[in-house]
C-alpha cells in the first residue's frame, strides 16, 4: 500500500511514513524527530481510547457549542439558482472551526505531560482558539504571528493577550503565516521537552496532517448526517470549502469522500498551491508549493490573512493528484463581493477566508461547473467579526456596502 488509498475510506490512515500517495512525510531536523514520533504514538493511542474520545466530544459539545447547524440559505439560493446549505462553523466558540483541532491537541498536550503550547496564526483565529484552550486547561501559551497580520488583525492580538497568551510578532521573511510557522518551528526545537506545537492546519510533518484532519472530521461527519435529514437521505451534489492549509476543507471532505458528492477546495488566487504550485518540501511536508526555479518559496498574496500561505496540506495535494477533489481559486474582489452578499441576503457575516468558498459558488452557479438546480454545501469556516474593520477600510468607510 502506498498510503492514503487503503481498502477502507479514501481518507483513512496515511501510509507508514505519513504519506498520502507521494505527498506528506516528515522533513524535520533530527532534534524534532523524537517529538514527532512521540506525538504520533500519543495521538494514535488517544484516538483509540474511548475515554479520550468521550472527553473530547463532551468538551466540543458543552464548551465548544457542537453540533453546529446546517443552515439552508433561502434568499441566496434564489439569487444564485442553486440550493445553498451552510455548515455553520462560524457558530463554534471562538468563531471558527479552529477550536475543534485545538481542543483535541490541548487534551493531547496534557496527556503527554507537557505544560506549554505554542502556535502559529495568520488571521488570528487559530491563535485565539489556542489561547482559549490553553486558558481552559491551565497551559502556558505562546502564539507566533507575522507583523503584517498583527496589524490587519489587531483585535485578535488583544483577544489572545486577554486570554493569557503571549503573542510574539514575527518580523522575518514576508512577515505572514509562512514566517510564523518558521518561527514556531524554531521555538519548538528549543523547547520541545516541555512544549507541544499546536499546529493549526493539516500541514507540517506527520502526524500533523493526519491528526488535524481527524480532529476536524467532526465537521464533515455532522454535516453529512444533517444534509441527509434536510435532503431526504440524499447527499449534496457539491461540497465546497476554503483552503489555507486546508483543515476545514479536510474535515469537511472526510465526511463526504465516500459519497458521490463532488469535493471542491477554494484557495486564494494569490496563494494557489494547486493551480500554481510545484511539488516541494517546506515546514516538514512534501506538498505543492509556490516557489521559484531554484526552490525559494514565494510569498502568497491575499486579502485574508488565513489563506496567505504558499502551500497546502499534503492530503489535498494527493486528492488533487488522484482527482477525487477539485481545487479552484477566488480573487480578492470576488471575496469582498461575497462577504457583502452573504451579509445582505442571509444576515451572516462570513470570515474573509470562508467568503472564498462562497465566492466560488457565486461565480460558477448556473454554469457547467455548478448547474442550476444543484445542491451545494459550503463550509462556513468562521465568522467575519475579525474582518469587519479591515473590510470597512477597504469599502471606504461603508460607502460601497
Amino acid at each position: 500500500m502506498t498510503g492514503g488509498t487503503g481498502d477502507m475510506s479514501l481518507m483513512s490512515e496515511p501510509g507508514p511514513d505519513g504519506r498520502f500517495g507521494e505527498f506528506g512525510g516528515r522533513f524535520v531536523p533530527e532534534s524534532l524527530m523524537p517529538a514527532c514520533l512521540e506525538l504520533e504514538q500519543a495521538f494514535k493511542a488517544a484516538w483509540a481510547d474511548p475515554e479520550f474520545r468521550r472527553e473530547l466530544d463532551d468538551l466540543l459539545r458543552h464548551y465548544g457549542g457542537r453540533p453546529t447547524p446546517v443552515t439552508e440559505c433561502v434568499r441566496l439560493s434564489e439569487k444564485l439558482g442553486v440550493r445553498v446549505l451552510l455548515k455553520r462553523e462560524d457558530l463554534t466558540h471562538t468563531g471558527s472551526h479552529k477550536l475543534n483541532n485545538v481542543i483535541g491537541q490541548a487534551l493531547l498536550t496534557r496527556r503527554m505531560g507537557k505544560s506549554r503550547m505554542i502556535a502559529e496564526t495568520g488571521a488570528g483565529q487559530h491563535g485565539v482558539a489556542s489561547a482559549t484552550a490553553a486558558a481552559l486547561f491551565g497551559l502556558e501559551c505562546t502564539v507566533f504571528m507575522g507583523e503584517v497580520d498583527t496589524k490587519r488583525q489587531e483585535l485578535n492580538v488583544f483577544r489572545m493577550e486577554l486570554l493569557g497568551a503571549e503573542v510574539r510578532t514575527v518580523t522575518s521573511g514576508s512577515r505572514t503565516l509562512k514566517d510564523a510557522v518558521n518561527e514556531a518551528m524554531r521555538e519548538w526545537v528549543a523547547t520541545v521537552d516541555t512544549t507541544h506545537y499546536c499546529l493549526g492546519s493539516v500541514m507540517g510533518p506527520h502526524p500533523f496532517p493526519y491528526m488535524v484532519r481527524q480532529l476536524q472530521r467532526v465537521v464533515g461527519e455532522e454535516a453529512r448526517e444533517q444534509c441527509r435529514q434536510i435532503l431526504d437521505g440524499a447527499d449534496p451534489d457539491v461540497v465546497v470549502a476554503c483552503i489555507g492549509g486546508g483543515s476545514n476543507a479536510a474535515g469537511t471532505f472526510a465526511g463526504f469522500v465516500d459519497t458521490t458528492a463532488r469535493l471542491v477546495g477554494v484557495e486564494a488566487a494569490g496563494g494557489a498551491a494547486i493551480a500554481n504550485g510545484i511539488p516541494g518540501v517546506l515546514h516538514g511536508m512534501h506538498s505543492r508549493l509556490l516557489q521559484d526555479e531554484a526552490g525559494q518559496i514565494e510569498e502568497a498574496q491575499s486579502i485574508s490573512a488565513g489563506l496567505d500561505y504558499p502551500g497546502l496540506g499534503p492530503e489535498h495535494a494527493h486528492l488533487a493528484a488522484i482527482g477525487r477533489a477539485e481545487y479552484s481559486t477566488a480573487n480578492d474582489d470576488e471575496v469582498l463581493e461575497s462577504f457583502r452578499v452573504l451579509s445582505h441576503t442571509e444576515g451572516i457575516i462570513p470570515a474573509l477566508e470562508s467568503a472564498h468558498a462562497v465566492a466560488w459558488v457565486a461565480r460558477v452557479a448556473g454554469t457547467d461547473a455548478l448547474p442550476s438546480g444543484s445542491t451545494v454545501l459550503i463550509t462556513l469556516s468562521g465568522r467575519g467579526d475579525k474582518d469587519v474593520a479591515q473590510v470597512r477600510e477597504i469599502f471606504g468607510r461603508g460607502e460601497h456596502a
Partner: protein
Amino acid sequence: MLEKALRAQRESGRKLLIPYLMGGMTEDWTQSLAAVVAAGADAVEVGIPFSDPMMDGPVIQQAALRALQRGTVPAQVLDGISGAEVVVPVAVMTYYNIVFRAGLKRMAGSLATAGVSGAIIPDLSLEEIGPWATEADEAGVETVLLVAPSSPPDRVERICERARGFVYAVARMGVTGERADLGGEVGAVVERIRRFTDVPVCVGVGVSTPDQAAEVCELADGVVVGSALVRRMLEGEGPDGAAEFVGSLRSAID
C-alpha cells in the same frame, strides 16, 4: 574524500576545525572562503541560501536573506566553490527543497562536478533520506547526518550506520546562533555517538568563541563554527577579518 581527509587529520593528532559561511552573502565571499582555509580550516561548510531556513537563528537567516537579495542562485554558489580551488574538502549545507527542486540526481552530480565532497541537509530526516542518499552515494557526495541531544540510542545507532563524512553532534536543542553557554549536554551526545561509530565527531550549533571551541574539542574530534563567523561577515569584516577569527579558533584548539 571528506571523511578520509578528516580521519587523516585526526590520526595526526589534530583537532578538526570546520567554519561555516553563507555562499553569496557578500561580494567577496569566495575570497573569505579561501582565507578561512589558509587560516587553518580542515574543511569548510558553505551554505546555499534558502528562503525559509527552519534550523537557523537570526544571524544565518540574515545572511541567507542577504545572499538572496544579491540574487544568489545555487549554481553560483557551486561555481564560487569550484573557482576558489580550496585545498580542503567543502561540504554544502542547505535545505531539502533546494535539492528536491533541482532534482536529486542532478544536484548530486552538480555538487560532485563543483568539487563538493559533502552535503548537510538538516531537514532531511533519517526517515526521508533514502532517495537522496542513493544519488549522493553514487555521485561520491558524503551526506553528513546530525545527532541531537534528544536522539535516543536506537536512533543514534541508525544515524551512525548511515553517517558519511563526519557525525554532526548538535550541542544543544535549538537553532543555530551564538550562545554564551553551551549547556551541559555536549559530552553525553558525543559519547552516545562514539558507542556506535569511529567516524569523526564534530560539535556544532551554538559554539561561538575560541574558548568554547577548545572546550568542545576536549570531548569531540572537532568543531563547527557558523553564526560567530557569519555575524562578523555581516558586520562588514572581509576575508582578513574572517581569517583572523578562524585563526583564533585554530590557536585555541591546537
